[in-house]
């Protein structure tokens, strides 16, 4: 082998190291043979790719206009491997072109691209003259990986948890309710008549969260409860499975489980006869109940109105249900979560809330619907430790954006964005503080019932 060839091989090995470290992928590959790979790919493409896939593939003129849209491409010195069209080439096109006859080495890279180098953020769709939805093609690749059994370990584990418990983090049914009781008890030290109303049939609002909240971020439940209480909201939480609105199965391509989770969530809200579901500050869960999972279940829109916290907080302010007591004077910047901004257009409402509580807001550019993803979204952060560096290195543009604002506080109303941006702040020594809207509102609102 020539020196250049050896060097290239080494480089490739380097690139693939996170995949070698991921038993979900490696052990899954061990079980596969050529015939199975070919059969699964072709069956999936035929049954689920449909006319849409054909059109998407035939329409692309390889112009590369989508490239600059992608934070991975921009963060890797414009390496074409990381361009949206490059990702499609390394995944679904090759599977189509080779009619499913692809090697295990090819699949290693395809899993990596699909699960760890694309956040399904849909920024690139906006720059393609034909509106080609790369995220859709990458999702289809993940569906194939799911069917081949080569999904990264950590996100697969969350999918397993969803299937067994209807929540993302193996939270047992008693642990959930107990954590609500615990938060209620704590809050009564601050607000003596505070309640987290459980199982209140006929309430206006069903408040749902993602399982990491009872597991790691209980203060978010506390804060949301205080905001609900002080706003005089007629609200409830469920004590039964269905309370978790998150959905990693949507991202692993286990669409059947996605449908099961969404059915459970909506039916739980309908059981309690609520008028709307208000959900905590999470982006992917919103996508799942507002756009993806509901449709898999054949609900054209939503069986129960869905309101993201950003939307809800803006409503509370607008209607005078909560009032600003103090304002943050430090420089604050706003991170726009893809799923609720590009996915729902909440950018102005987000700003209304932030500006109400912060005197010194400085924008990142590009922003709003043109924002760069946090690089944790789309299930990438859920692929766990082996792939952490991929998303941090793959988002130096976000680090640059953050740095340029000179802000000391970043507001990010999404769990995944929090995880991703926290790592970016840390790795780049940016020394910024990260906050949810709930953190800010809780701290700076009037609380007439507090002692």
């Amino acid at each position, binding site marked *: 082998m020539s020196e250049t060839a050896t060097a290239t091989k080494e480089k490739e090995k380097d690139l693939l190291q996170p995949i070698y470290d991921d038993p979900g992928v490696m052990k899954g590959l061990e079980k596969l043979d050529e015939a199975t790979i070919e059969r699964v790919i072709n069956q999936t493409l035929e049954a689920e790719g449909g006319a849409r896939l054909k059109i998407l593939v035939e329409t692309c003129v390889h112009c590369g206009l989508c490239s600059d849209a992608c934070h991975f491409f921009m963060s890797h010195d414009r390496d074409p491997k990381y361009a949206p069209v490059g990702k499609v080439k390394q995944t679904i096109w090759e599977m189509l072109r080779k009619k499913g006859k692809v090697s295990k080495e090819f699949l290693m890279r395809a899993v990596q691209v699909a699960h760890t180098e694309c956040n399904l953020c849909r920024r690139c769709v906006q720059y393609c003259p034909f509106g080609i939805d790369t995220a859709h093609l990458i999702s289809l690749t993940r569906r194939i990986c799911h069917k081949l059994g080569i999904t990264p370990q950590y996100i697969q584990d969350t999918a397993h948890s969803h299937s*067994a418990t209807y929540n993302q983090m193996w939270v047992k049914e008693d642990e959930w309710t107990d954590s609500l009781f615990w938060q209620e*008890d704590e809050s009564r030290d601050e607000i003596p008549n505070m309640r987290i109303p459980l199982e209140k049939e006929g309430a206006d609002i069903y408040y749902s969260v993602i399982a990491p909240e009872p597991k790691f971020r209980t203060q978010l439940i506390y804060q949301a409860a205080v905001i609900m209480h002080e706003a005089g909201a007629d609200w409830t939480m469920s004590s039964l499975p269905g309370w978790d609105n998150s959905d990693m199965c949507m991202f692993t391509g286990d669409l059947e489980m996605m449908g*099961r989770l969404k059915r459970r969530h909506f039916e739980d809200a*309908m059981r309690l006869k609520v008028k709307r579901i208000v959900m905590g500050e999470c982006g992917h869960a919103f996508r799942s109940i507002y756009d993806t999972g509901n449709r898999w279940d054949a609900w*054209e829109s939503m*069986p129960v109105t869905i309101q993201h916290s950003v939307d809800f907080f803006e409503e509370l302010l607008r209607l005078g249900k909560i009032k600003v007591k103090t304002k943050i004077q430090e420089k604050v910047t706003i991170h726009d979560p893809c799923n609720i901004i590009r996915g729902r257009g909440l950018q102005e409402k987000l700003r209304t809330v932030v500006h109400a509580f912060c005197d010194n807001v400085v924008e990142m550019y590009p922003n709003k619907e043109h924002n760069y993803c946090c690089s944790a979204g789309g299930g990438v952060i859920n692929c766990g430790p082996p792939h952490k560096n991929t998303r941090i290195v793959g988002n130096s543009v976000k680090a640059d954006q953050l740095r340029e604002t000179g802000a000391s506080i970043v507001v990010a109303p999404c769990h995944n964005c929090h995880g991703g941006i926290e790592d970016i702040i840390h790795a780049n020594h940016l020394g910024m503080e990260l906050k949810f809207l709930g953190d800010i509102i809780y701290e700076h609102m009037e609380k007439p019932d507090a002692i």
Partner: protein
Amino acid sequence: MKDASLWDWNPGEKEIVAYDACSGDCEWLEEPVVSPDGEKIARVAKIRDEEEAVFTLAVNGELWESTFERCWYPRFSPDSRLTALCSEMAEWTLVVDGEPWEERYGFIWDTRFAKDSGAIAAAVQQDMQYGYVKDGEPWGEFFENTNHPVMSPDGSKIASVVQTRNIPQADIFTFKEGCFSVAVNGEPWDRNFVNCWDPVFDAKGESVATTVRTSLYDYTIAVDGRAWNSRYQCMWEPRFNPGNGSVVAAGRQGGKWGMLKDDEWIWEPRFFQCWKPAFSDDGANLYAVVAPSFGRWTVAVNGKAWGEKFKQAVSDLVISPDGKRAAIIGKTDEQWGIIVDDTRWVGWFAMAYPPVFSPDSRHVGYAVERKDGQMTIILDGHAYHKDFDKAWSPVFSPDSQHVMIRCLDGGVYKRIVVPISEF
């Protein structure tokens, strides 16, 4: 056992108690629940105490003598006994009419009542092991986790999905080998599956069917631990035919849904959705909620969909006691309505509660909430002449001649018996 014929069915309005009545010094009273016979209204009460949290239940304004650190989930049994889940010294139990069960647990939740007997059950956790307790008696064996409990109609058995093997953290390989089964009264089947969901008993309480995944991709139904031969893309909850013991469940093929009976298609997969199967008591009629086209919801009876549909969702499907009629409540353009026997009744509401059939199957009533938050009862398409601050689902007399309205009216909890002929 409840004997509704002994309840007071004399026509007229009875004021039971003021809504905020409380025999003690209460800081607050929580959301009300009312008894099936309409005679009682209960609320969790927080008693004023400077030192510690003290809770109990107020029934028609009278506080239970026993008090607790915390009380939640007040529920009346079908025979109108009041249950609540209560804790003392961080240990939990179920309390019936003020009397706690003797055994204490780490936690207790999800109270269930038997349809045909007085049995009461709940899920419990003890020392991080999970099981069920019925009438104070816990299962002999507890498990690493339990989900989806169901009680047999006579209340003698509880079946539940159980986790029979430990899954080390993030161990996706052990999971894929199958770590879940179904246990009946604590006795697990001798076979594990990758997942089990929604177990159900047959009419006699002798057999249990459940939806299973045998790999991440293969769905089927298992009856008493034995899986059907075929595998499907996806499946929903099974139901036993009470007439002949066969098992049906909706299955997905080629992206469309149909109905299977004992592993054979009986409704070809042509629906965009199909779930909540329900049989008439004689097993002759099979109903299910279906979406014949994308986003349009109704009922199919023996495979044939009704013409009337809701655009947004169907939440509840109810079959008449004689099994010949059905009613669904659902939503179109953010408003709730009802379709009975493929006829849409006039009126759209802010909320609609599950329909109730009279015992002779001739009448249907349901509680609705208007846009201004006031509630009333609709019977056979006609609204009661008065709105209330709150109304619960109507209750029919056993002879189907009267309907009972349980309501909050002007700060008073009332029970109104109306002859159907005068509604």
